């Protein structure tokens, strides 16, 4: 019922039927009341007439004080079956004669108050009192009571008819309304349907059809105007959006181009710097080789075997230097895909350390007990570890300390594998620590400054990194770490 009431047609129908019901009910009630009052007046008049006539008839019997005869005269009231009781009071308060309809108990009610004639209406009684006047003198009072049976029976018949009349009126109203309301609800439902279509399809080009020139028509016009405004606003917004999009794309493209140019420029600058550094670094050993060849000739001419040997060894050493520089350059510039495999870090590192050449004065301590496995490019990681160890060896070479040591440790810290390489050399001055991984940064006589940059690049390719710790007291600790997310680490507690 409540659900059905959500439709405007149902609501309208319910409202009109209710109004109709109330209106016909009120009208029927009012009419019934009016009818009852008319009937009461008529009945009262009739009783008064009867009382006056009977009172006159009883003049003689009252005058001669013959109550029996008066009672007999009152029996004529039997012709009026609704009269329940009649009484002649003479003098004023004493009952002189009385009539009671068959089976009725005598009611000794107080009389309606004067002046007379007087009437009193109760739920089921109409009482009338008239004066009995003889020769202008009141000789008694005539009291008569009617049970209004005729009125009640007619009223009940009427009350049976009224609902039928109301029902009929409702039927007629409903039929008429069905016809009339179509004209009212159709424009509203059409408007509602259009609104629903607009909101579902976001199609603001739709318009509701105006079906009548009334308020609903005005509403339709206002709705259509609103749709027009939304459509115009939408189009403007869309145009603005498109313009903005185009502008953003244009700017982005310009930015990309600028960025590419910048990258290109930077790349060229780096390349320029790299070329300058590498060519300088190559020219030194090449100069040595060239000089050694000149000296070799001198030595041969002078037949100095010792000088021949020393010149040849200088030449050889410097050819190796050239080769190392080229190797360093290649390591750094190698950007190819990682060739990954499963590596057991401890034996892998052990083998690597054993293959290396260790100067006699440097002692190697190892603690390779991580038990970890990881996924990585063995060749490139080998280069990273080698570069750090060579760096440590070179740092120790010139240091004046009694016992030179390099420590290599593997361990699992959280979700990372750490390879720790530590030396007890002079350490790295604080002002240089930030630059140690910069490409082309070198503090050495020999070197193009790509070794540590290559280490950082290799670790970065493995999603890891390299950390430098160099305490004030000297020594240097590099931690090469790889996260276990790219490894299948068989973890092992420290």
């Amino acid at each position, binding site marked *: 019922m409540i659900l059905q009431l959500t439709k405007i047609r149902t609501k309208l129908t319910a409202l009109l039927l209710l109004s109709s019901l109330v209106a016909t009910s009120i009208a029927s009630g009012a009419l019934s009341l009016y009818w009852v009052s008319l009937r009461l007046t008529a009945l009262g008049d009739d009783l008064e007439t009867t009382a006056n006539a009977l009172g006159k008839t009883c003049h003689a019997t009252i005058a001669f004080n013959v109550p029996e005869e008066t009672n007999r005269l009152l029996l004529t009231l039997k012709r009026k079956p609704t009269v329940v009781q009649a009484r002649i009071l003479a003098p004023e308060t004493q009952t002189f004669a009385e009539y009671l309809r068959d089976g009725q108990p005598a009611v000794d009610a107080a009389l309606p108050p004067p002046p007379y004639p007087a009437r009193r209406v109760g739920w089921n009684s109409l009482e009338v009192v008239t004066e009995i006047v003889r020769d202008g003198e009141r000789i008694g009072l005539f009291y008569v009571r009617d049970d209004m049976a005729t009125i009640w029976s007619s009223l009940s018949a009427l009350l049976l008819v009224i609902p039928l009349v109301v029902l009929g009126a409702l039927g007629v109203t409903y039929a008429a309304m069905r016809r009339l309301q179509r004209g009212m609800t159709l424009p509203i439902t059409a408007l509602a349907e259009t609104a629903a279509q607009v909101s579902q399809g976001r199609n603001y080009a739709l318009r509701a059809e105006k079906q009548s020139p009334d308020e609903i028509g005005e509403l339709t016009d206002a709705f259509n105007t609103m749709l027009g405004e939304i459509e115009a606003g939408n189009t403007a917004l869309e145009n603005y959006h498109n313009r903005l999009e185009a502008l953003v794309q244009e700017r982005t493209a310009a930015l990309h181009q600028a960025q590419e140019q910048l990258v290109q420029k930077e790349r060229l600058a780096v390349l320029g710097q790299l070329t*300058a550094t590498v*060519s*300088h*670094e*190559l*020219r*030194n*050993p*090449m*100069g*040595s*080789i*060239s*000089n*050694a060849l*000149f*000296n070799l000739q*001198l030595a041969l001419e*002078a037949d100095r075997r010792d*000088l021949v040997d020393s*010149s040849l060894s*200088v030449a050889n*050493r*410097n050819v190796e230097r050239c080769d190392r520089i080229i190797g360093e350059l290649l390591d750094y510039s190698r950007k190819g895909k990682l060739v990954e495999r499963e590596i057991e870090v401890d034996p892998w590192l052990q083998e690597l350390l054993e293959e290396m050449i260790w100067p006699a004065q440097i002692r190697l301590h190892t603690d390779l007990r991580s038990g970890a496995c990881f996924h990585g490019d063995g060749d490139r990681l080998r280069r990273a570890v080698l570069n750090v160890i060579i760096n440590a060896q070179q740092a120790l070479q010139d240091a004046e300390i009694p016992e030179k040591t390099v420590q290599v440790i593997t361990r699992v810290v959280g979700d990372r594998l750490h390879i720790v390489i530590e030396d007890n050399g002079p350490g790295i001055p604080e002002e240089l620590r930030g630059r140690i991984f910069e490409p082309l940064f070198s*503090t*050495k*006589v*020999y070197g193009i400054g790509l070794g540590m940059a290559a280490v950082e690049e290799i670790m970065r390719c493995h999603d890891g990194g390299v950390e430098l710790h160099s305490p004030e007291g000297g020594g240097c600790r590099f931690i090469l770490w790889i996260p276990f997310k790219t490894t299948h680490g068989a973890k092992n507690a420290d």
Partner: protein
Amino acid sequence: MPTERKILIVEDDVDFAGTLTLPLEMRHHSVQIAYNGFEAIRISQDQAFDVCFLDIKMPGMTGIECLRKIKELLPATTRFVMMTGFRDEALFEEARQAGAREILLKPFKMAEFLRWAEELSD
């Protein structure tokens, strides 16, 4: 045989400095090597040289900085010759401003080096 000369070589590359020393010594010149600028200054405080060869790129102190300092210590007749693997005109100009007579580009011909070592001061 040219006159015996006193020569200072300032060069951080041990092999390069060594290969320059041999031919000079075989030609009876007196050669001193300084492996960095500080060492060159120290040596120049005690000794005089006819010719100074300086490498430009050295850690700690560049050859040009070193030249400016030892020029004050050495006789005005001393000749300064730079040696470098860089090809940088601005750097060369700076060296000339500082007092370098010539820039030798590594790797250079030994004959040229010897010519500069043995050429008499003008």
